[in-house]
């Protein structure tokens, strides 16, 4: 099985660095799968689930929100604002965040507040979905 090199970095540090068989993640306009020897490619990352199949064939899931994916010369580099492995997600916290965000949306008066609450809700929903 051919592989390619993947690094995942966030502002809080590097979370993954190794060979993988495939990578699937949600981009701004839908899901995208990356396999070895993909054409050189750079695009913005949306909010959703990311699935990585490691060299050993292990499937790892994560919540991946916002950022940039670049695939240059068989080296993929995922720069994500938020990247959390499924096993590290605090489901209780995500549920609480979801409730709080929903409440804020119903109470929001300003556009800015509404936008912020919506973004928070989206993040919480992604986390809950990945964990589920």
């Amino acid at each position: 099985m051919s592989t390619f090199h993947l690094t995942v970095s966030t502002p809080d540090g590097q979370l993954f660095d190794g060979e993988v068989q495939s990578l699937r993640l949600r981009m701004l306009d839908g899901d995208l799968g990356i396999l070895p020897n993909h054409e050189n490619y750079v695009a913005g990352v949306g909010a959703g689930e990311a699935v990585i199949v490691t060299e050993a064939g292990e499937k790892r899931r994560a919540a991946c929100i916002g950022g940039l994916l670049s695939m240059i010369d068989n080296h993929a580099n995922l720069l994500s604002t938020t990247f959390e492995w499924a096993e590290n997600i605090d489901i209780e916290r995500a549920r609480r965040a979801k409730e709080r965000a929903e409440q804020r949306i119903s109470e929001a008066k300003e556009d800015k507040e509404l936008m912020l609450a919506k973004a928070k809700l989206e993040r919480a929903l992604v986390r809950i979905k990945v964990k589920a």
Partner: protein
Amino acid sequence: MAGASMKDIKLRIKSVESTMQITKAMELVASSKLRRAKERQERAHPYFSELRNTMDRIEMSTTDFFSPYQIRRTIERQCMIVIAGDRGLAGGYNSNVFRYYEALMQRNAVKTCIIPIGKRSYEYFQRRGAEIITDEFIEAAGISVADCFELARLITKGYLAGEFDRVGVVYTRFVSLLTQTTDSVDLLPLMEFKKKQSEPKEKKIEPLVLYEPSAAAVYDAIVPHYISGMIYGAMCESVASELAARRTAMDAANKNASAMIDDLSLRYNRARQGAITQEITEIVAGAEH
């Protein structure tokens, strides 16, 4: 000992000792926080440097490339982010930042609005009646990456809307534990890669890359992230510098306090000796009669 009784001296020694305890504690706290601040900065570094690399790659590999963030307009109004500390007792850390800012303003006087970070910075500009854009980011120590993103969104939006034509940041660079220098960088308009490298040593052929939806769109989407990275980096450096400055200041305070205690103990012993001598003289004088 002229004037000072033994009791007075004893009291002073006690008060210096308790001050020393505080400065010692502050020094220890500053050292441990400093280590954490440095780690935080190092963790974030690869992420933001890779963003810059991607931006450079886009600039290099596309010829018909154009971004509103790169246009140089005549500067009528600028926005300065001034990062200082939340607290004092850090030697010249805060005043150095403000002195640097004033010198900078004297060199190019344009209408300026301020985004203060750090309570001291906020207080300073409020007192001077400067135009403050937002006071949401006052606490320097508590600023997270998310706050920097927020701030970056705010300034990129303002820049695109033409509210200001230049964005700069004044911060303190962490050179070493003993040296910190105040510095400033321009965030917007963006530096152009081609101009930055006046003489390319080796001409590397950039691989052809597919940008989705387009190179310019990807570039413009990265810019706020990049800006927030720059701000976060400056923040981390400033926080580390503040802690290092405080550590040095507290170290000096400790040394001064122990010197004072030494001096005072000497005086105390002399006063004690003087008192004993006097007593003996009195007794001897009484026995002679």
